[in-house]
């Protein structure tokens, strides 16, 4: 008797699913260590393409793109996390207020409008107000679509924190500000951190919107990579991809661990 939870073949499906998800990444990661110039032939293990990323002919271009990606992601995710934290406080600790439903819809709007439509409308907006596309326009667009991603974990966390903790603090002579700083903020922190991390990855990940609002000459890592692969997949692209993959996995693991550690609210 296997019990009602068991269905034959579901394990196999899950494993197949994982295989499909991981095989391409694994293959690229392995080939990034290929010593050969050809992407089809295995020329033994080598780090030459990683060296090429940092010193090769395209190093300058990718270096600048990486710097842009990183700084944009940093500023956008931090700003978005701050805006989302304030919004979550209002939405979850603000009681019933006029416009709550509308505010909720607004926060989630960037998730509902198709990415390509956001890209088009943002480009049209910048062009109409006469803002030259470049670093600033990318940054503004990223802040906007990062807000709902930062909001989700922050709001979820805040919802799990009962109001009695702040009340207990107030009962024990804390002012409103002290109750926020000493009790609510530390309790919210895991949510804020994972919201920030997710926003960071989302910003780092974005291609479509960035591609529309970046302007000529300005590149982030995804747009630079896209430009390269249009001429065919080269080994140095695989090395860059593997590096970015590593960064993403690192960040998601961090977000996961922070969240799990923070789950313990008795």
């Amino acid at each position, binding site marked *: 008797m296997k019990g009602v939870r068991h269905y034959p073949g579901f394990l196999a499906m899950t494993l197949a699913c994982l295989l499909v998800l991981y095989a391409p990444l694994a293959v690229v990661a392995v080939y990034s260590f290929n010593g050969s110039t050809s992407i089809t032939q295995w020329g033994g293990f080598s780090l030459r393409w990683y060296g090429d990323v940092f010193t090769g002919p395209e190093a300058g271009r990718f270096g600048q793109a990486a710097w842009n990606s990183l700084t944009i992601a940093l500023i956008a995710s931090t700003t978005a996390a701050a805006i989302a934290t304030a919004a979550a406080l209002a939405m979850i600790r603000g009681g019933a207020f006029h416009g709550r439903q509308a505010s909720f819809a607004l926060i989630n709007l960037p998730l509902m409008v198709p990415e390509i439509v956001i890209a088009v409308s943002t480009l049209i907006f910048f062009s109409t107000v006469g803002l030259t596309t470049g670093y600033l326009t990318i940054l503004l667009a990223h802040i906007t679509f990062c807000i709902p991603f930062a909001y989700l974990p922050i709001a979820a966390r805040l919802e799990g924190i*009962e109001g*009695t*903790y702040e*009340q*207990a*603090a*107030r*009962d*024990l*002579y*804390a*002012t409103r500000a*002290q109750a926020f700083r000493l*009790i609510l903020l*530390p*309790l919210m922190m895991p949510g804020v951190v994972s919201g920030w991390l997710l926003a960071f990855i989302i910003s780092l990940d974005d291609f479509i919107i960035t591609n529309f609002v970046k302007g000529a000459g300005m590149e982030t890592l995804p747009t630079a990579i896209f430009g390269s692969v249009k001429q065919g997949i080269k080994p140095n692209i695989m090395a860059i991809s593997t590096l970015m993959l590593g960064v993403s996995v690192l960040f998601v693991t961090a977000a996961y661990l922070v969240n799990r550690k923070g789950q*313990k*609210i*008795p």
Partner: protein
Amino acid sequence: MTAAVEIRRAVKRYGSVTALHRVDLSIADNEFFTLLGPSGCGKTTLLRMIAGFEDVTEGEIRLFGDDIARLEPNHRPVNTVFQHYALFPHMSVIDNVAFGLKMKGVDAATRRDRAGRMLEMVHLSAFADRSPAQLSGGQQQRVALARALAPDPKVLLLDEPLSALDLKLRQAMRVELKQLQEDTGITFIFVTHDQEEALTMSDRIAVMSEGRVQQVGTARDIYEAPVNRFVADFIGETNLLEVEVEAVAGGVATVALPGGHRLTCPSATSATGRHHLSIRPERLTLSQDADLTATVERVVYLGTDLQVIARLDGGTPFTLRLQNAARVAAPEPGARVGLHLEEGAARLLAD
């Protein structure tokens, strides 16, 4: 002497819902005072109004003479033990206990010292550096107590603090709480819907129902001398009989029982006419010299007692409890029995 807490004509409305109707209460210093009542009667609301988490719609709340109804919670020298304790999960036990002192600006050495003594008082010194999540329910409860007592409040508020504990622990904590109250001399206002808890610990009890205080008195008062049907019925078990009052004078009424017998008993009303009579089931004996006659329908064995479910001659259901002594033969179903009311068994109610 000024009362520790004086509530005058306090009203609480949530929109169109009235949670409290003109409540008046006076709680003396050094008293163990209990708010008792069924779910939804407004106990928590009243307590939260004293703590300052809920605005007072109308009326005043005085603490040793000062009106505190408009003060922020952090400006009221009262502390609360929360129902699920609300221990700060990101702080150690000792930091939790010291929190109130820290907010009051007490220096680090003094508060560590005092928090340590509070933990000693609740027998948890060994757990000072643990996090609250690593404590059992009973231990968390005692930390919550220590935390609320550490700033030496003028009044301690407790909202069903024992409800999350199992039976054995709950009984032990009752004794401990009562002891703590006597040792510290702090006024306790305790909320519960468990009457046994209320009867065993309290100096005085306020019985509440539907946003109104029905009766205030000692455990003996409210059990022996309930003023109305709600209190008589809510506290313990009782039989309610509708009777004709023939005369009342000086708190003593003469009533006609169904079946014709006359009875004089203490009265909560001074009006004649039809009223309810409360008769406690354990204050009856089987007797030839009967005030009432009934037919036994069922006998339920309860260990220390026998519960006899009967029907009076007029058709009213009636319950009595007999001590399960070897000498007493249990009546058989179908038997007709005579019931004798002991001294103080009956009381005439106001409604």
